[in-house]
């Protein structure tokens, strides 16, 4: 599929204009090179290259590019590293793609106030690396943190395993420089808290690049904890593990992370990285505590007591940094390990209230049996955030369709249990039709209203988040678009 077929002379004119703004080396227009940008990390869903890619190096260049698009009524979208999992950075139908990966500088490191201002293309992990020698860190740690950009994190309101205690991106962003969809540059929020006015920064964060393009971000940095303790608790059943999750929280202990891996996942992980998870376990919990040393020692005693009360088979505490890294390696490589048990898989993201976790996992198993697909589960259990991985064998006729139907039913059940269809991946292209299951037309009209205020011409990352006007309610419509499933 090609771009949206911008009129050739418009395209030529824009390319020339962009070359004047950013220099010829910052404009990509050959079909071969454009194909690189035809999707983000949601690779199986919908692919479409942009008509032209521009790589600006400053806010004013971004503003100029956006102004040109606005003048010509040409759709445009921002892109960072393209690691998003819901199609947020995939062109719906061509247009201009503004890629921020040449804007990578850390502009200001304000150690006295524990804040940093970075350009949108700065990679998440670089920031933490740059400040760790000062005893600080940047808390949001999405799985892709070694590649993803902070601008992209703002667009998707990215989370990560450690957000149980520290919160997600929106809790750490203090300010942003934003190019509005008509090219106006505004500064939302700032280093000073609570300045009067509507919380535009709050609604901009997580808007998936549909309300404008952020070019600079000011974030809060946190002092490193005095100590960290990583615990692996081994359970006979998922139910026991879920009860332990609730029990830990009920004790008033808030770990930084509480990750669960089920038997299928353990099998895959052990075949791949040998993290030392026992193969006979029904589920394991990876629990991490951080804080003042005395505090976490006391909490670790509490965590162990809860796990034993819930009949856990064993509790292991990482004694060295190497042991800790190995335990985490198993979790971090979980997705990559699925190649060991399936050729392809369909990764889902949904949230239920913490207390419904056991129930939803049981139902996911039943759904898998009903649709005859194997489903492995990893979960940010402390947040009630599940990531079912639906295995697909493409050689079996109908398997792909059944996988998609199973995914759709899981989404429905999560909503019925009081949850949501995405905890951290976003709606993007993938989940637009599910929005109607969660929100009434009136609820969605409010979001449309916000969109209309920021982007009356509807040019900024169009075709994302909102269901198509004429689309049917429910997931079948989305599923129809899912022509293939990602490689494992």
């Amino acid at each position, binding site marked *: 599929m090609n771009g949206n077929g911008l009129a050739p002379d418009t395209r030529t004119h824009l390319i020339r204009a962009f070359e004047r703004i950013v220099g010829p080396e910052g404009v990509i227009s050959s079909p071969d090179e454009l194909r690189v940008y035809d999707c983000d990390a949601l690779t199986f869903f919908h692919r479409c290259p942009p008509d032209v890619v521009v790589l600006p190096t400053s806010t004013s260049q971004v503003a100029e590019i956006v102004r040109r698009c606005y003048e010509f009524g040409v759709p445009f979208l921002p892109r960072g590293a393209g690691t998003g999992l819901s199609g947020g950075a995939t062109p719906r139908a061509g247009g201009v793609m503004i890629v921020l990966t040449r804007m990578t500088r850390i502009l200001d490191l304000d150690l006295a106030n524990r804040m940093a201002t970075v350009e949108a293309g700065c990679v998440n992990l670089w920031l933490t690396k740059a400040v760790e020698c000062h005893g600080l860190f940047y808390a949001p740690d999405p799985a892709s943190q070694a590649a993803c950009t902070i601008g992209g994190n703002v667009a998707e309101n990215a989370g990560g395993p450690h957000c149980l205690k520290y919160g997600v991106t929106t809790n750490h962003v203090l300010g942003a420089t934003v190019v509005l969809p008509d090219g106006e540059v505004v500064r939302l929020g700032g280093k*000073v808290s609570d300045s009067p006015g509507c919380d535009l920064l709050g609604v901009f964060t997580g*808007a998936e690049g549909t309300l404008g393009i952020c070019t600079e971000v000011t974030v809060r940095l946190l002092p490193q904890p005095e100590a960290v303790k990583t615990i692996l608790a081994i359970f006979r059943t998922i139910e026991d593990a879920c009860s332990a999750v609730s029990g830990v929280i009920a004790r008033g202990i808030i770990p930084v992370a509480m990750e669960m891996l089920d038997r299928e996942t353990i099998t895959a992980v052990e075949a791949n990285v040998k993290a030392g998870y026992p193969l006979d376990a029904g589920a394991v919990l990876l629990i991490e505590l951080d804080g003042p040393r005395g505090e976490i020692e006391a909490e670790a005693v509490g965590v162990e007591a809860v796990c034993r009360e819930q009949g856990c088979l064993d509790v292991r505490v990482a004694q060295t940094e190497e042991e800790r890294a190995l335990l985490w390696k198993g979790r971090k490589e979980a997705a990559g390990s699925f190649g060991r048990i399936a050729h392809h898989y369909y990764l889902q993201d949904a949230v239920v209230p913490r207390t419904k976790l056991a129930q939803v996992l049981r139902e996911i198993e039943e759904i898998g049996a009903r649709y005859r697909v194997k489903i492995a589960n990893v979960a940010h259990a402390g947040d*009630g955030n599940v990531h079912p991985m639906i295995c697909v064998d493409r050689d079996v006729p109908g398997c792909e369709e059944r996988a998609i139907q199973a995914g759709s039913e899981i989404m429905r059940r999560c909503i019925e249990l009081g949850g949501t269809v995405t905890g951290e991946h976003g709606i993007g292209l993938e989940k637009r039709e599910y929005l109607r299951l969660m929100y009434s037309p009136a609820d969605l009209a409010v979001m449309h209203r916000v969109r209309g205020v920021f982007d009356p011409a509807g040019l900024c990352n169009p075709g994302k988040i909102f269901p198509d006007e004429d689309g049917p309610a429910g997931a079948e419509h989305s599923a129809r678009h899912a022509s293939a499933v990602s490689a494992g």
Partner: protein
Amino acid sequence: MTVAASVIQDLRAVVGAESLLMGEGLEAYRLGDRIPQAVVMPTDDAEVSKSLALAWEGALGVVPWGGGSHQSIGSPPSRYDLALDLTRLNRLLVHEPADMTATAQAGIRMAELQRQLGKHGQFLPLDVSMPGLATLGGVLATRLSGPLRCRYGTARDLILGVRVAHADGTITKAGARVVKNATGYDVTKLYLGSHGTLGIILEATFRVYPRPDVERGWWLPAHDLGAAQVLANRILGSHLVPNRVELVDEVAGRVCGVSGPGLVVSISGLPETVQGQFVDLERMAGEFGVTPSELRNAEGAWTALSDFPWPNAGWIGQGLWVLWRGGVLPADCARAIRAIRERVSGSAEVAMAATVSHGAIRGRLGAEAPEPLVRALAAARETLVGLGGYLVALRLPEGVRDGIDVWGRPPDGLGVMQRLKAAFDAKGILNPGRFVGGI
């Protein structure tokens, strides 16, 4: 504008005669020199919706009203026909202790909400002023916070979703009852702190936290404000996890029973871990020649610090007083407080406290006559703006309102905010004129 008798009749039909206040009772809903022509006291969401639909039809100016404790915040309404008193929507609807979430109606008083959450040993860590009066809805609409934000953040971090009544009476929801959600725009944030100008919050779902086993507080006296700031920076940049780090000047210090300037610091947790952190705190303070002394009446100090500068304890004496809040960079709190004191001493009395972690300063200015008070307020604002910050006047006495914009200079993005207002409330009936830039 006089509200047509037929509209009054319709409103009465919606809420019932006993829930429509007219005549003498209206004085309690005064804002500046205006009182409404009627007060509607709905008992459920449907009554709110229908009342608003009538107001929308008649283009009546509506002021949402909770406890009335903080109604002095904001500019006076440009139109004020109806007050919508939400205090009868006062139930805790859902509390899931194991999920650590709860949902409550907007009209519940903060103290009552905390009492009910406390039955399961939990609380909502918004330690705002006047919790006995202030309602949840009002606290969220004004985005009030207190010293505990040092540890727990503000409403922005705690609120997971809201149900909102719009200007035309439509009711919508935003967010969900889970702690993590990336589903569509986070419109919840727009209602927090927009003073009811975009919609009226009917209920909110929020995170709750376990009440700590113990919370101990210490007074860390410093030679001067600057020394207190340096010590605060040291604490906040360390591995300690304090609940509160409040920098108080001499006058504000008196409010919580200490003789400033210095820091009030608290730490919570299990008894033994609190002691462990205290040992580290004591060592850090020692590096600066400061010896912490434990607060004997810590609970009293927390109440006083949360209430400051509001005159809840009746400690404001004779004369005219301006209450305000301001913001600067966290490391600039002492500089700001010292500079304001230098600028206004001679013309006004001043007391200030700051939540250092967030650079949130609050203060009061007092004088015998309007003129010096207005000058002092302008000087305080100028000082904060000069440091890259801002000042918002929270309460102005009679006679000093003229010509003062309580919000200060227009914020960045005001154009977007005004367009939002127009999109959410085309007739401008919700709290008209009370927010920034005439919104």
